């Protein structure tokens, strides 16, 4: 018997018309489904692409960020997945420098030491020299080892003008119980270097207003930190409609963890105004501990309704040795409307302040000189954040998807209201931001 697998390309003479495509079209209209000669997304042998652009704008002319992202995913026949991603950030605007607002105008030396900037009376001091662009590249690889095991590996690098971050990660996943249960463990390592223009500020050094004072406040030209993250997770299919995930992760950072652009105001004990020395207000560069260990627990449940809608709820609890703990509640409802969907999103975040968070330093504390660590960065203070958003996606006939997302973010901080003149100032202004994203996957 002959049973030989052949490909038609061997043919030299073609007395016959090629009717296979016409038959394919006829079969498709008979079965009333689109032809899948164009392979569906995620099928072996194809590249899937995703392009998105994120626009982030804080109100009051503060930070504006534009971030185009381009991602390409290749699915291989044996289930391997390669993903390459590139993102470009352009940030402009201003960011609070940590000093308190004041009844009088305030003048600050820029982090580079090359110039000064002035904040009007009553305004939140913001460093408007904040301008940066960033490029980030990453590659990840996921592959099955066999039916029950899977591994992944990734590399990451990003570069800003004064900041370089390099990282690598690896993980392993074990399926159990007919793939209804998945256990995964991952480890990642990253190494970041900062080399700010004007060098690194010494911890709690006084901001200088002339070259000699500025130089006295400076330390090395660059510093670095390492971050090691470990994650353990389990995901479990509960029933045909429900899947649950539970993760524990621990993150250990070591090295230079301060923000070289943040300062604290020293406040006069009697007036509540800025404390002065030599006719200048006193501001100290912030100092944070040189290590941090964060633990977080994450729980997520997705529930699919009979009509195809999906409810997605999650909760994260984070605790660290800086005294911060936080709770994040996230809720999404994916409302399927034929080939489109609408996804309302609500997120609530609450955080307690770090042990060394201080909105300002008092004259007494400054003179005593025994403070080791202090920051006025609102991101380490007591804060509540709320995000309300809506995403719309539309799947096109050719399996491409267009989506857009609008979100509004409102963040409010609270804490020590101060005394004297300081009481008249808004020490905890809200941050409001509008986020707009458009994406297209093909």
């Amino acid at each position, binding site marked *: 018997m*002959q*049973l030989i697998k052949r490909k038609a390309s061997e043919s030299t*003479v073609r007395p016959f018309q090629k*009717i296979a495509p016409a038959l394919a079209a006829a*079969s498709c209209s008979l079965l009333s489904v689109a032809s899948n000669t164009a392979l569906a997304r995620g099928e072996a042998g194809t590249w899937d692409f995703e392009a998105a652009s994120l626009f982030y704008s804080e109100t009051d002319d503060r930070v504006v960020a534009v971030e185009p992202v381009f991602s390409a995913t290749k699915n291989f026949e044996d289930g391997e997945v390669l993903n390459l991603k590139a993102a470009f950030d352009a940030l402009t605007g201003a960011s609070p420098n940590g000093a308190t607002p004041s009844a009088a105008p305030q003048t600050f030396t820029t982090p580079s030491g090359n110039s000064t900037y002035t904040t009007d009376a009553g305004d939140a001091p913001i460093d408007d020299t904040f301008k940066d662009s960033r490029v980030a590249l990453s590659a990840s690889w996921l592959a099955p080892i066999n039916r029950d095991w899977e591994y992944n590996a990734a590399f990451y690098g990003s570069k800003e003008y004064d900041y370089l971050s390099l990282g690598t990660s690896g993980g392993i996943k074990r399926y159990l119980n007919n793939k209804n249960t998945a256990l995964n463990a991952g480890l990642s390592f990253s190494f970041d270097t900062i080399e700010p223009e004007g060098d690194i500020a010494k911890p709690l050094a006084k901001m200088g207003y002339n070259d000699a004072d500025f130089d006295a406040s400076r330390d090395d030209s660059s510093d670095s930190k390492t971050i090691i993250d470990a994650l353990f997770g389990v995901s479990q299919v509960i029933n045909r409609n*429900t899947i649950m995930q539970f993760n524990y992760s621990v993150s250990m950072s070591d090295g230079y963890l301060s923000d070289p652009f943040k300062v604290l105001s020293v406040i006069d004990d009697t007036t509540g105004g800025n404390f002065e020395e030599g006719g200048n207000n006193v501001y100290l560069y912030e100092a944070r501990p040189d290590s941090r260990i964060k633990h977080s627990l994450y729980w997520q449940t*997705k529930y699919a309704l009979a009509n195809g809608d999906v409810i997605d709820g999650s909760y994260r609890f984070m605790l660290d040795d800086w005294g911060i703990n936080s709770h994040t509640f996230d809720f999404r409802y994916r409302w399927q409307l034929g080939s489109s969907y609408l996804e309302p999103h609500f997120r609530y975040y609450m955080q307690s302040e770090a042990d060394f968070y201080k909105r300002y330093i008092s004259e007494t504390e400054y003179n005593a000189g025994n403070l080791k660590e202090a920051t006025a960065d609102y991101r380490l203070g007591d804060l509540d954040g709320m995000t309300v958003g809506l995403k719309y996606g539309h799947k096109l006939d050719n399996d491409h998807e267009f989506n857009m997302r609008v979100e509004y973010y409102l963040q409010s901080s609270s804490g020590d209201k101060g005394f004297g003149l300081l009481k008249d100032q808004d020490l905890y202004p809200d941050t409001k931001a509008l986020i707009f994203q458009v994406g297209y996957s093909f």
Partner: protein
Amino acid sequence: MAELTLEPEDNPAQHPLPKLTGNRKLWIGCFQAMASDCELLIEGVDEAQALVLLMIAAKETWRIEHKFSRYVSGNTMDRINTSSGQPIEVDPETTLLLNFSEQCYQLSDGLFDITSGVLRKIWRFDGGDAVPDSVQINDSLKYIGWNKVGWHSPMLSLQVGMELDFGGIGKEYAVDRVMLALNAEVDRLPKQSAFSNCRFVVNFGGDLACSGPRLDGSPWTIGVENSERDHTAVATVSLRQGAVATSGDSRRYLLKEGVRYSHILNPLTGESIIDAPHAISVAATSCMQAGMLSTFAMLHGEQAEAFLKAQEVQYWIQR
């Protein structure tokens, strides 16, 4: 094994109940329809889910069989074939099948013709040697030819003495319809459930389709019957996606004076195709497409291979 319950109207031909065997690694569902062993291989679901899928497959297959079989009185086919020259209105599904048949007639230059069933009355493929004579053949040819059919969707008029027969496409159509029904059931369920890992093969006696590669990434290995050794040995095809259909003359032929007359008949001449391969399997996106390509190839007899080469599809020939 858990019990499968079906309403009587789901099983009009009163076939034996479908059977599910296997385990969580691979479920094997079997049932009978269209004079074939129908098989459903399912991976990645639990037993209850496998039973649901098997029941959907059996119900859909039996529905198609009952609607389009030539042997069920009062069904759609019967209504068409007993219309005695009167125009009748057909339902949307039949409309689609008639449109498809018409396209196949045109694409094959008249070699594929759903009116050719009347030739069965003179060609009896029972392994005997009764080859009809030219008088009988010419008499039958009067009632053959899609061009003689009045088809203006949804109105169909058939001359007295003519008959339509979807036998040449029924099994492939059922495979594709079952694939659609199973995919719809799997899609209906949330992506995050165990069903997102479900893969399956629908195999109706060698006409088959799969929903993708096996969960471990390997292809499905499916036996295709070896015509010469008849059931005892199989050749295998590997399938990652799409469908395979087989046309052949295994066990259905006439032997006279050393000439093997295949059961594939040329509707233009009324003659059996001689020198056709024993079996032709073709891989394509859908089982319908694969089935038509293998049938057309068979109708080209000794030219089968040349025809298939021109189609640029993957195929297997047994001579």
